[in-house]
């Protein structure tokens, strides 16, 4: 998984690419470290470039949400596609995250 972080003042955009799975764990922890400084902002995870998410990856999103919530930030999952979208639907992620199609 690769990511790019862009802060436009009002919100933070994180473009995720590749696969969000067990192998992405370390990169994702680095990402969480970077996001820790953006308190009280909306963090948008752009999932356009994400080809796959597995159960570990889903767990990472929930960890991110927990961490962000502590800093007063909220998470939006934007543009999930194909089986990433399917995984979010199957696990009713909309009950926890704001999802933008």
């Amino acid at each position: 998984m690769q990511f790019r972080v862009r802060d436009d003042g009002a919100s933070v955009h994180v473009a995720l690419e590749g696969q969000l799975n067990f192998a992405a764990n370390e990169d994702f922890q680095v990402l969480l470290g970077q996001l820790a400084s953006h308190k009280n902002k909306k963090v948008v995870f752009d999932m356009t470039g994400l080809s796959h998410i597995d159960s570990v990856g889903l767990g990472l999103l929930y960890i991110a949400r927990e961490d962000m919530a502590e800093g007063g930030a909220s998470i939006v999952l934007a543009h999930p596609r194909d089986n990433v979208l399917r995984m979010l639907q199957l696990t009713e992620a909309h009950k926890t995250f704001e999802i933008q199609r």
Partner: protein
Amino acid sequence: MIDPLGGRLIKLPGRNAGWGGDQILKQSSFLPQLTVWRQNKDRLQVLLVEDEPGDARLVEFALRMSSSPIFEVTHVSSLGAAVACIESGAEVDVILLDLSLPDSSGISTVSRMQEAAPKTPLVIMTGMDDPRFAAYALEVGAQDYLIKSDDPEKTVSRAIRYAISRMASQIERQVLIERISEQQRHLIEEVAAARRMQFDLLPRSERVDPRLAEMAIEVEAFFEPSSGIGGDLWGCLDCGENRMSFYSFDFSGHGIGAALNVFRLHALISDHWDPRLKPGFMLKILGMALRGLLGRGQFATMFLCTIDTARGEIEWASAGAPAPLLLHKGEFRLLDATGVPLGLSRTPEYSEHREEFPPGASLLMYSDAITDALVSDDQTFGEDGLCALVRDILAKTGELSVGQLIEGLDSRVRTPLEDDLTAVCIRRLGGRP
């Protein structure tokens, strides 16, 4: 009401702070019992095995020149005498060995000396200035060599020190290898025992067969943890009369952590199971119970259904499990399996579903190892791949079997699979499949 005297749980720290490589290295028994590891010793006992009095004198003189360390030399002039010296229990830190002795010559001198003193560093002294011979002597077990024509004053002391430290490293490495393989054997035994325990959680034929026979239900199951033990499980629960419940669940991640969570959820199911409860309400109870137990980012997906053969119905609820397939009359479709996985929500709610499940119908529950299996670097098998496979099997045989499913999966995805694999097919016998 808190008692004024108070009360609390006191957790004493364990005496084994951790279990891992560091711990292994700290164990005193680990430290190799090195008779040779005396780098800082100020006196070193040298056994000089040399039959040429002139050569022996040169070496002894060279060693006498050294004051740090001081070399104390015992000189013998045959291999037999050298072996007798070792066997008498004399303290020897290093052996300087000439290869051409009255009672032995050549490389066999090295092996015979080694046999007598396998852990004592050995420096070969040779008149032959042949690098290939020297390399061979090192290969068969000597720690260093000296060419007799070299100036012994300069080289002998260095060769001895080098040989001692080289031997110490060799012994240390050997002890490490033995310790590591012992730990590995131990770990494999532990995992094998845990694996047997996990397989013991699965339904047993002798218990469920009489009930399945009464209800004319056939269950075909495949269960394979990816790394010895894993985070999957399936089971069945007797509701009495014409009803039987089935479940499968899968914890995020795999390996030992996920397997421990399997035991947790299995125990929770046993504690909370009530055949009168609807599947969705049962999942809610399990989700709330798990919520406080799991670590960050951990959860389980679960599918729970009850088959009622008298009413010809199946009712189910799902906590984000891979959508099971309902098959009947050569057709099939994915069931609605949406729901928040267990452990991720404090107040989970699950929809109850109900469908007809007449004789001839069957249900396939499976873990995401199937849909997450890779067909290429960036493409997973997915629900599309599974549906295509099931379609092909039905076209060929008219009925879905788990054996064919696993076989077909193996031929279409990259193996071995990286996740724990469960596939369970529940069939109502009678009627057309």
